[in-house]
């Protein structure tokens, strides 16, 4: 973590130092002496060193930050490790809570209740972060079907975990079934005509070599870089969206 995160926010300072501890010995419940740290923002020095909570749920928020960094719907690699760590943290919190709840019930120690509530809040927070992470990834993957088409490039596929791939296949299937069911006999491809069509045939220029391309009446066209063709719109739409062809408007 860079110094940029050491802003006016003392919360952040504590996070940085405890993350180091996490790496050595994950999940230590720590209310420690912050005088040992070099940098405490002046405005917080009056606060006693023992007044800070340890930072649970920090890994979970890091997952979300990672997603937020990749703007514009790009899909980063699935952070298997991160999720596993958060789940371990949740498991440890849950087990601690179980023991405390049993203790509180049997021995009537009601002063354990605040710590139970604290761990419960951390569990809920972790759950919310993980749910947000997974859901946002699913939304991005769904968008891929509409932008890239059915076949995804291999690099993107590597970024998805097995379950997400499964979800993507199911989504494709649902979409295909739906498209078949509307629009009469042959179905209706709703991923076409995203922009209002003005003509049946359009002028396109090839941006990179794509090999041979067959159109409906059987003619085969060789798509070489910088060659221009006059092709039916519905055949080209997919290729234009993928960046292989370029729509030329005179």
């Amino acid at each position, binding site marked *: 973590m860079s110094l940029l995160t050491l802003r006016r926010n003392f919360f952040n300072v504590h996070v940085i130092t405890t993350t180091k501890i996490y790496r050595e010995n994950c999940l230590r419940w720590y209310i420690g002496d912050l005088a040992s740290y070099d940098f405490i923002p002046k405005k917080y020095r009056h606060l006693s060193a023992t007044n800070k909570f340890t930072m649970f749920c920090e890994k979970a928020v890091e997952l979300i930050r990672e997603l*937020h960094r990749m703007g514009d719907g790009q899909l980063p690699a699935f952070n298997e490790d991160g999720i596993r760590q958060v789940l371990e943290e949740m498991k440890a919190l849950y087990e601690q809570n179980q023991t405390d709840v049993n203790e509180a019930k049997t021995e009537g120690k009601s002063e354990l209740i605040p710590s139970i509530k604290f761990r419960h809040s951390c569990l809920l927070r972790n759950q*919310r972060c993980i749910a947000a992470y997974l859901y946002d990834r699913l939304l991005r993957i769904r*968008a891929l079907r509409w*932008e*890239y088409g059915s076949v995804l490039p291999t*690099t993107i596929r590597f970024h998805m975990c097995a379950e997400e791939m499964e979800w993507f296949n199911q989504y494709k299937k649902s979409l295909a079934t739906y498209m078949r069911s509307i629009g009469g006999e042959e179905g209706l491809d709703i991923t076409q005509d995203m922009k209002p069509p003005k003509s049946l045939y359009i002028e396109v220029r090839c941006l990179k070599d794509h090999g041979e391309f067959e159109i409906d009446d059987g003619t085969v066209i060789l798509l070489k870089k910088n060659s221009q063709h006059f092709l039916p719109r519905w055949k080209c739409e997919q290729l234009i969206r993928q960046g292989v062809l370029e729509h030329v408007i005179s």
Partner: protein
Amino acid sequence: MWWHRCSCVPLRPVYAEFELSLTAMGAKPSGRNVQGQRVCQRRPGSQGTKMEMPLWLAKGLYERKRRVLSMELPKVYREGWRTVFGADPTVVDLHKMGPYYYGLGSQLLHFDSPENPEIANTILQTFIGRFRRTMDSSQNAYNEDTSALVERLDCLERSLFKAGQSGLNSFQLWEKGRSSHLTASSLVINYRKRKITDLQA
């Protein structure tokens, strides 16, 4: 847009200063760490200890009846700043005063402070006061650098600004007759740009 950002989790740590007023907090660190050893801690002190807590934690621990926590409002929501907002909301740099002014303010109302009605009213009036300028600038800044317009806006206003800009751009495209112009998807372009920069790196 086929996706929308899941904006339910704020990304900057959102916190407020909370005053702990419960002796039981002292008993809290009686847990064990992962290895099962009892970790030795110092008691954080009993009644009246001031602590900083993230918002989600404070909301989880807050209890109206037993008065576990009492909250000290962050600067921006206090009397002084409220008069500033009352005088002229458009001048304030809301990005600096906490980028989630409206969101955090709405969440703070959860804590039953006696000033809640005033806080709620101030937040509402601030939004009303600033909205016109945001909308105006987003609808009229076409094809230019908007960083100066955006830098003093809070996150909610920024998303509104972005929505306005995207509407403006779509309309201008339509006016130029380019709405039927097929283009490569933005995902593909960004992906390719990133690949090139990765190769160059």
